[in-house]
């Protein structure tokens, strides 16, 4: 099932991510797709807020992976600087996926074959206005089927 939702500002994006973040469970993998400036990091900030992470969340473009401690930890990945899928394996990311943490992968659509099939795919596209964004959420992952209704409710909230 695919759901769409529109936001009109970075604050709204963050608030939406925060509501979605409240649905997350340990082991979840979120794959974020969207061009530079689309709001992938703003979205991740909202997820971090939902997990009670007070640390400043910045895109780990140069560190590639950053872990945030919380009762459910957050693993924030940005594959933008990688050239080969193998680099993702060489980072030891496989050890972190699908365990106690929630993993958010920016530009994850570029390496989707190397990521678990059970995941939530979120595409962020530019809308009409400068701050308008359209989110397309694909709940194909097996553990997401049970949460489809909750995500549908989020998407229709606006």
């Amino acid at each position: 099932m695919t759901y769409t939702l529109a936001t009109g500002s970075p604050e709204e994006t963050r608030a939406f991510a925060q509501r979605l973040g409240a649905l997350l469970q340990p082991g979840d993998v979120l794959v974020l797709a969207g061009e530079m400036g689309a709001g992938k990091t703003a979205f991740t900030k909202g997820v971090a807020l939902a997990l009670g992470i007070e640390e400043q969340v910045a895109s780990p473009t140069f560190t590639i992976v950053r872990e945030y401690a919380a009762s459910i930890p957050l693993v924030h990945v940005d594959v933008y600087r990688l050239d080969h899928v193998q680099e993702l394996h060489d980072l030891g990311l496989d050890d972190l996926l699908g365990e106690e943490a929630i993993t958010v992968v920016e530009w994850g659509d570029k390496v989707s074959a190397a990521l678990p099939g059970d995941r939530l795919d979120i595409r962020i596209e530019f809308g009409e206005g400068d701050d308008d964004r359209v989110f397309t959420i694909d709940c194909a992952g097996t553990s997401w089927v049970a949460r489809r209704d909750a995500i549908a409710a989020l998407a229709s909230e606006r």
Partner: protein
Amino acid sequence: MLVLALDTATELVSVAIGRDGAVLGAVQLAGGRRHAEQLAPAIEYLLRETGVHQDQLAAIAVGKGPGLFTGLRVGVTTAKVMAQALRIPVVAIPTLDLVAYPLRHTSRLIVAVLDARRKEVFHAGYHSVPGGVQRAWDYRVGTPAELVADLETHTGPILLAGDGVARFRDVFAELEHAETAGAEHSTPSVAALVELASARMEREEFEQPWDVHPLYLRQSDAEIEWDRRGL
């Protein structure tokens, strides 16, 4: 002939010192992801308590995976560096073999299953042969459901072992003709590593440190297509 044996391909750090195939001392630590912090002190402790000087070692034996990436790197690198510094060879044994070997006295198909994270398992099947086990298929990574589907075509009795079985208990419970080995068989046996490595040393089947490579089953030669980058 003295051997230092170590395996860090699972959540555990396992170290032993063996003489002629028998364990003189062994340490096993369950520290999660603390392999790098725990391995060297464990080696140091064992050498001291067994009264073995590192110059007396004839070889370093290491579990070469498949296993969890971070730990596996720590173990294989430590083995290579020590062997190179001491000018002794390495005997690298697949970690799944270290799960299967202690079960070699069964006539059932032995299936070693280790948690591979991301909801997958590393596995291999083994048959008993005189003096050991022989692999029935190549080392693989896949979902527990795929493995169960493969095993359903096997009509004979099956013995499952390794931490991946307990981790995905519900999936493996669907298998008929299958039994899970006791909890002591859920982790790779460092005693098996000592025994197998000593036998290899006697046959002079060892490797030079620079020839040793971990067994990674998740490999990719794909380039990432960055059609939009650089705009």
